[in-house]
């Protein structure tokens, strides 16, 4: 049962958070952390008589995204009304785009390549469209148990770019990689800030070959997509194992309980009664405009990875990982320039920083580490002020507190003890405290390692291990000679 083919397609909704205003009105796009229903106007609330007033810059971002994702930018497109009643809709229709015989959405086709292990896989795109974000619904606890629904229209009318993929993904991991890559590309374009809560959401269509397709809604990030799809695969496999049929339905991803729940839709297919939104004139996208946008296209993640590899001499795999998130790539590049040691920086990021972030479930943007602090740390190691091991110990604190390494080392008394006199003092103490081990070491060279360990332990790793090693062995050698003299052998 475990080897059936899984087929996944994603509908990604990207908020164009870099726009100053919403898609059809002058309300700020910076709606987060505002008092509910304070970032609204007659247009995004759908008041009688109000009309949509399209944000032209949104079209430009959509064109740039289309070019970045190898899509065909339509010469002419128009907005449509998608009619359905739902509590998050201020007009009970959504202004969106629609592909029909005569009309196209803003971009058609395209693809995006992901790296699955060492292999490169191409995920094809179906289309892209601009549409308005609905309001945010707030429930008390899980959606199906909430006694009521609160509606916050602060988000209503935010510009969304919907990017629909072909069902080309074969595992939850590929879905995550696809979203990560998409996020990095869109961040490089400057269309949105992926670190903002809910700025990239998706609906996933998933089926186990031979069974009905299930749509999962309300997936709020690429971290969640893998969890949601893994849950759904187990649920479907379980059901199939019990001989049940998979019902074609829409399910809701409950982020709190980490389960999908059926929304018990009565109808199989909605009839959205799409028809042209005639309050907005059709968009003519001139080839000159497309060419102009193309000329302004910034460096994209794949090209950047290639450059990293060449310019900084780091392995291709590392370069791909580093460019998987714009903030990370920027962090690496700044640190590499600041320190002049790109390989060392890359190793620290790949080997340690990413692990620390992963353990704490943090994005680089959420962390407080800076290129200055990691560069300082590397410098301190090079100068012998701290050991590499101390570096590893203080890194988590650099991430969570944002303190400079010098400060942490000082606070925690972690400067390396490099002068031989101090080390000799500690060694003397350890020898006094461990008479038996000293005796052993006099007879067996190997047993000296225990004493070295004790010294390191006492100083919490601050001593230069080389000096400790030399000091301990010299002292044993001297004791042995003294003993020889005493006994006359």
């Amino acid at each position, binding site marked *: 049962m475990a080897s059936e083919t899984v087929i996944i397609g994603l509908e990604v909704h990207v908020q164009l958070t870099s726009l100053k205003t919403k898609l059809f009105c002058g309300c700020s796009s910076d709606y987060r952390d505002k008092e509910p229903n304070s970032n609204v106007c*007659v247009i995004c*609330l*759908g*008041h*009688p*008589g*109000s*009309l*949509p*007033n*399209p944000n032209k810059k949104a079209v430009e971002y959509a064109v740039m995204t289309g070019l970045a994702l190898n899509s065909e930018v339509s010469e002419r497109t128009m907005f449509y*009304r998608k*009619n359905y*009643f739902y*509590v998050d809709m*201020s*007009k*009970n*229709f959504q202004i969106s785009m629609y592909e029909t015989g005569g009309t196209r959405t803003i971009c058609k086709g395209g693809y995006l390549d992901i790296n699955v292990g060492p292999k490169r896989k191409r995920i094809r795109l179906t289309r892209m469209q601009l549409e308005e974000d609905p309001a945010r619904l707030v429930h008390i606890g899980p959606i199906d148990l909430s006694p009521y*629904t609160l*509606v916050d*229209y602060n988000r209503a009318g935010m510009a969304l770019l919907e990017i629909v993929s072909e069902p080309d993904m074969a595992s939850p991991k590929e879905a995550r990689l696809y979203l990560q890559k998409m996020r990095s590309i869109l961040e490089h374009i400057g269309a949105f800030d992926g670190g903002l809560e809910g700025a990239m959401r998706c609906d996933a269509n998933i089926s186990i070959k031979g069974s009905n397709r299930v749509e999962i809604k309300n997936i709020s990030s690429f971290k969640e997509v893998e969890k949601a799809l893994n849950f759904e695969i187990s649920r479907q496999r379980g059901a199939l194992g019990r001989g049940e049929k998979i019902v074609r339905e829409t399910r809701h991803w409950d982020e709190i309980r980490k389960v999908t729940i059926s929304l018990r839709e009565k109808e199989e297919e909605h*009839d959205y*009664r799409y*028809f042209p939104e*005639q*309050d*907005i*004139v059709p968009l003519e996208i001139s080839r000159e405009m497309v060419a102009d946008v193309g000329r302004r296209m910034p460096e994209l993640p794949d090209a950047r990875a290639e450059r990293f590899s060449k310019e900084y001499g780091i392995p291709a795999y590392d370069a791909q990982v580093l460019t998987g998130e714009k903030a990370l790539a920027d962090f690496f590049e700044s640190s590499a320039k600041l320190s002049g040691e790109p390989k060392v920086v890359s190793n620290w990021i790949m080997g340690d920083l990413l692990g620390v972030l992963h353990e704490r479930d943090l994005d680089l943007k959420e962390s407080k580490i800076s290129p200055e602090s990691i560069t300082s740390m590397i410098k301190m190691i090079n100068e012998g002020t701290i050991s590499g091991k101390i570096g590893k110990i203080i890194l988590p604190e650099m991430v969570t507190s944002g303190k400079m390494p010098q400060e942490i080392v000082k606070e925690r008394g972690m400067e390396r003890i490099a002068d031989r006199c101090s080390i000799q003092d500690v060694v003397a103490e350890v020898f006094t405290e461990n008479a038996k081990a000293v005796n052993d070491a006099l007879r067996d060279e190997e047993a000296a390692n225990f004493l070295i360990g004790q010294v390191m332990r006492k100083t919490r790793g601050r001593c230069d291990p080389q000096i400790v090693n030399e000091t301990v062995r010299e002292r044993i050698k001297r004791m042995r000679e003294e003993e020889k003299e005493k006994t006359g052998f």
Partner: protein
Amino acid sequence: MRIIDLSLFELVDAIKRGDAKKGEVLAAYRRQIADHDCVLKAFLTLNEDACSTASGVLEGAPIAIKDAICTRGLRTTCASKILANYVPPYDATVVKRLKEEGAAIIGKTNLDEFAMGSSTENSAVCPSRNPWDTERVPGGSSGGSAVAVSAREAVAALGSDTGGSVRCPSSFCGTVGLKPTYGLLSRYGLVAFANSLEQIGPVTRDVRDCALIMSVMVGRDGFDETSLDAGKEDYLACLDRDVKGMKIGVPKDFLGEGTEEGVAKEVWKCVNILEKLGASWEEAELPTLKYSLPAYYIIAMSEASSNLARYDGIRYGVRQEDEGMDWSTSYSKTRGAGFGPEVKRRIILGTFALSAGYYEGYYLKALKVRTLIIKDFERLFKKYDVLVGPTMPSTAFRIGEKVEDPVAMYRSDIDTVPINLANIPALSLPCGFSNGLPVGLQIMGPPLSEGKIFTVAHSVEEELGLDLRPPVARG
């Protein structure tokens, strides 16, 4: 002469010269309303705070606004229960422009609920009555606006015209009503019924007033994407031009079966006047006219089904008691109780016409017919400067006469709906009487030919020299 007998143009002139005081003017109009509106029912809401705060070309003019056009801080109900308590936080662009020129918004006028109707009988509040015969309808949907202007309860008014809603009541009440070229006036703040068809339009006592108020309202509005950046033509100057050398088309399809003889007679009288003034005319054909009614109703209802979806009682408007109900039950209850029968009929039919499996056969087909009608008019306007015909096939009918037969009611729009489908301007000019009831002459032109229409209308108006005061306005 009484203050209320002055036209808009004369009134502003009198105020500017100091012959009339703004306060007196408002008081005179309020007295007229107090005396007659209990019967006529032109107004749904009177503006207690009406005042003229700017000194412009409309200084001190008490203007009435159809209750489908938003007025900041002044209840705007669309004559519907569902918006009975709605107070807009903003002014429609045209209202803002009127205020900026010194107009005082005297009140909000009655209409068929959400502008759906041709008699004002579909108002959820009460029907308005025709000042020429209070047993008859004033026409619709902007019935209240035409009644107010005709009965001297306002010096001018705004209506909205989706399929004839400014011209029909103007024809029935003896006022001048213009449906401008689509996009000439901003629709921002006009509560949408069928957004691809409708325009705000003025209702006035004479053609000069219409030209004056239009010149205040035109011009691109950044809040309405479809509003045109039409060069500001000097409409008042157009009144002094003559029709000599103009070519007039008289589409016989407008005067065929179903047109009352008394109406046709008055229309022909105007054609003769135009000829006398030096214009030439000939009969023309508009074969697509017969398809315009079904095409119009399919498009209008389809758009309405979507435009009216927002009234769910959540953000504004009247919400029915819904404690313990899920949202969809609450919506159904609110919409079930809030909308009247004609509105429900149109929402249901429009939803049907847009549904999968019917879309191609109804909505898409209607759009194709619309294109044919546009082309048909374009063909005629290559030959003629303007077309003339009746605005309505009949004079005002009796209250209750058609209300039980929606198709008969729809049929009365036969001469007005093609104008909206074709996006062109048309003006209804009082041109005579049939059995004591006003008859309207419809003057139609190509897109943005308002100036030429004013020339024609003003020439005919001057020749006719009609006394258009209904009994209630004769003091």
